[in-house]
């Protein structure tokens, strides 16, 4: 997979983050750091969490929120949460 090529769930999350932040899909590379590379602040980071939880009907823990600093990490957190939900 090329650096900017998300598919399936990854693509959906990338789109969601683009909608919340107003950033382009091209900017939202998997490893691009929200704060350092994209200028996404802590307020937007919380808004991303709210949007993700609503869309996937999952619960992200307080301590996971600061970890969501890239699209790639967001995808990982959502995958884990969906898996947990499935096994519950």
């Amino acid at each position: 997979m090329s650096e900017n090529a998300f598919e399936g769930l990854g693509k959906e999350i990338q789109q969601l983050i683009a909608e919340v932040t107003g950033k382009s899909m091209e900017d939202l590379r998997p490893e691009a750091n929200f704060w350092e590379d994209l200028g996404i602040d802590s307020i937007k980071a919380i808004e991303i969490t709210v949007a993700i939880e609503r869309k996937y009907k999952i619960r992200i823990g307080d301590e996971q929120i600061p970890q969501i600093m890239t699209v790639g990490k967001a995808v990982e957190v959502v995958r884990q949460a969906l898996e947990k939900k499935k096994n519950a």
Partner: protein
Amino acid sequence: MHKKRIVVTGIGPMASVGVGKDLFWKGILDKNINISLEKTCIDSELWDEFYLHKINNFSINDFGIDKERLNDIKEWKDGGSVLELDYLIALVKLALDDSKLNYNASNNDIGLVLAHENLGIMQFAYQISDLAYEGLIDKKRSDLSKRDFFDEFYRKFLKIGYDIQTFPDLFHIARVFNIRNYSLFINNACASGLYALEAASNVINSGQAKAMVIAVSDCPEIYKYIWFKSLGIYSVDGICRPFCKNSNGLVFGDGGVGMVVEDLEHARERGAEIYAEYLGGGFDLEGWKITVPQLGSDSYQKAMQKAFAQSNVNKDEIDLLCPHGVGSQVIDYYEAKAITDIFGKNPQKPLMTTFKPYVGHNLGGSALLETAILLLSLKNNVIPPTLNYDEPDPKFNISLVKEKKEVELKTVMKACCAFAGFNAAAIFRKID
């Protein structure tokens, strides 16, 4: 049942700006904020340090409290003392003295509400850590079965562990002041003070007491600092800048406040000085996360609207609003959104100011401690400006008072958005 009118007749604050109502208010007006770098050492080795609005040279013996009763507490504590408990005792004394209520008779009409987030926990944690460390260096794990270790450990901490339950504190404090009426301990994080006020007011309305003394406090300790630092919301330079572009977090504040509330008729009968009427409070529990508010929710707005409904007050009647104003980008944003949803963007009214830059963030005691400043502002028709408000962030769409203002105030509101989503607002009005 006819709802009684509840009035505030005693204010006993204690913070870095001063101890006791008069010194405290003078300290606010003089901007005597007294921030120091608090160092925590373990066996003289520096563990960590953080900025704190600090009370210097506190001694419970300076408050004219019955020595025999204080000794009884000391005896129960096996000769030790718990600073937070001493703070609460001092705050009750300051508030009762200010109210001039007679509490010497054992059949007095006074009840008690206490609020604190973590009373006694630090002494407990220190002792546990100490024993665990000593255990580690004296013994290998194989020397002791886990069962025997637990048994020894629990026996060591039986008393102090039992004592961090909050009811003994109610017992001790009520006993010092001959309080035999309804009593209650509350913890709703930073909003505890407003919950305590509402609870005290409900107790009076139920007829269980004519007057209630409330004491709320926090004594910020290192473990809370480490937690807040890890969350990225503790100011690294010790400067709290509410609703600013360059805000970088909160700074803890030592102390708390005692407050007496009573039935208006009772207050008038005894010729009490009345600071204000508590018209009502609004409370909403967001219930999203413990440490982060849910941006986009309307929980805080609901708390404010409930306060208007309970108080029978129109939002346009609010002359002065004191928000939580912690100086964290996320929390300030959440709060500004709620304020502008209620009052409109960049409202001319109400005027707004925040008090954490004066007294720090007193956590469980903060909402009522800041209410005390608000009530003194109301009484004196003086609005202390928000300190450190040098770079207001236009994205918040609100403006705070920058210079001291002398203006006729009639109706004021305190609002608070606490951890765990305990959102609260309370409205007060001057009595003619």
